[in-house]
């Protein structure tokens, strides 16, 4: 068996990881941009509380976040029971739960990157757009958002990479079920727990490094391309 032919378990883990991370970023992106915009541009009571709440996953042990999610959204959880009963949606112990756990953990990174670039947008440009006849919503979509694209790309890729590496919250919230919730880090962890799993573990390790590098390179390339477009 050659070094790099992957076993079905490993392929499952890789596919699931990409799928879970993709969904995590896709779903959290609009909320992340909205939160970043609110934190950068609005003044409202409880703003620092919201800021703190968003950043909490950054400083809490991931297991705590996973446990809180379980308490909240488990099938007997406060929200989870209701979701299960009325809408028939189960989140805990499914890939959706894994995506949610990843999204929550990666959210602060996404919001930070986007918020920084929104704060850098010249508000004079937005004022100019207003005088040209654009309402606030149109200004956001035609001026603010295009100008923060580099920040959104950076934030999304950072969040994607963070999701690929999510472990603690995921294993606590949705457990470690092969093909359903066993993402790459969980598979790697499992392999290290069984005798003779070193080789497979190393393969997954290489894949994880490659994915991380690819994400960083992609982020850099996209940012450069965008910057070049503004210049031409």
């Amino acid at each position: 068996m050659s070094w790099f032919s992957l076993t079905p378990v490993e392929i499952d883990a890789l596919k699931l990881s990409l799928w879970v991370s993709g969904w995590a970023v896709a779903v959290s992106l609009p909320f992340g941009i909205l939160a970043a915009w609110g934190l950068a541009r609005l003044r409202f009571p409880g703003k620092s509380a919201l800021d703190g709440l968003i950043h909490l996953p950054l400083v809490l042990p991931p297991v705590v976040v996973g446990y809180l999610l379980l308490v909240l959204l488990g099938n007997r959880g406060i929200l989870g029971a209701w979701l299960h009963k009325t809408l028939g949606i189960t989140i805990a112990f499914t890939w959706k739960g894994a995506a949610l756990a990843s999204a929550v953990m990666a959210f602060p990174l996404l919001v930070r990157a986007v918020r920084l670039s929104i704060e850098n947008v010249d508000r004079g440009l937005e004022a100019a757009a207003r005088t040209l006849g654009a309402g606030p919503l149109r200004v956001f979509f035609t001026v603010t958002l295009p100008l923060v694209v580099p920040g959104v790309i950076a934030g999304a890729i950072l969040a994607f990479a963070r999701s690929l590496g999510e472990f603690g919250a995921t294993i606590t919230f949705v457990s470690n079920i092969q093909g359903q919730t066993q993402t790459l880090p969980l598979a790697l962890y499992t392999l290290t727990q069984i005798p003779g799993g070193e080789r497979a573990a190393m393969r997954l390790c290489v894949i994880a490094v490659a994915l991380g590098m690819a994400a960083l390179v992609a982020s850099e390339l996209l940012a450069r391309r965008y910057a070049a477009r503004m210049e031409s």
Partner: protein
Amino acid sequence: MLDVCVRRRQGNFTVDATFRSEAACVTALFGRSGAGKTSIINMVAGLVRPDEGHIIVGGRCLFDSKSTIDLPPEKRRVGYVFQEGRLFPHLSVRSNLTYGMRLTPKPERYVEFDQVVNLLGIDHLVDRRPAKLSGGEKQRVAIGRALLTSPSVLLMDEPLASLDFARKAEVLPFIARLAGEFSLPILYVSHSLEEILNLADVMVVLDSGRAVASGTIEELMSRRDLQSLTGYTDCGAVISTVVESHHEAAGLSYLRFQGGVLKVPRLDVSIGSRVRVRIEARNVAIALVSPEQISVQNILPGTVEEITNGNGSLVDVRLDIGCPLLARITPMALSTLDLKPGMRVFAIIKSVAVSHGIL
């Protein structure tokens, strides 16, 4: 028509300005930096809210604290040209130009894309990005973008301030043509009197937030009490003229104004153009009879209007030669000629500064 009356406290600073002007003329807001010019223009644009007052443009009320009307900027239909241009860096020049145009309902558009692009000479730039434009080009695009919204008033906040001398000379003629070409009132903010003398018909003088005087350029420039604000060390009168004819052999151009004709060294402008001249008080002498055999070209009859003692050694005499003219003479000359208001005299104008392009 422009009717503005606004009050706003910002910290220790109070903006309090009232002025009005007629349609299709250039109104200049003049004052030192920090005099509140930009605040006022931002209030007209709806970017800053006055505490009280009203703003009426072309018969349309944009703001009235009494009837709590406060249109948002996007509903005001003002074209705003900012000091730094503020072009959208992520859009091409063409998309910048059409940004506001596309948001203006078709029946309300009176400005055509091609017309503006040709007038401003920016047709070769439309496919570029703003980052690739020079300062003067950026400002021309910014003017075009504001014009293409078919605004009811054009607001210009020091549009030339960020440009060097050559770029100023490049943009200024375009601005000068706008008001006439589109019969559009323009509110022009500047701390440069040269720009204002070139462009404006009406001037509002601001001093620490207050409008201390407003009126035609000719009227205000001959007022001695505004001299410290206008900043010219030598006071003088400004006269609007139209180029009447050129006389190649004599090397002269004749400029017609309300009180007659001024002869100036040959100008390189076409007949019929509007030219503003400035005549400094120290370059005007007074005679009781029309002098003959004299090298001075411009001798105009007039009436003494007012005599004011300057600071000790000199006396300023205000003459009416069909428009105000200032003469600065010695007290000795005053008593010798025994000048009194109402007397018929002759103004001997030794030199005329022509404000065409840039003074």
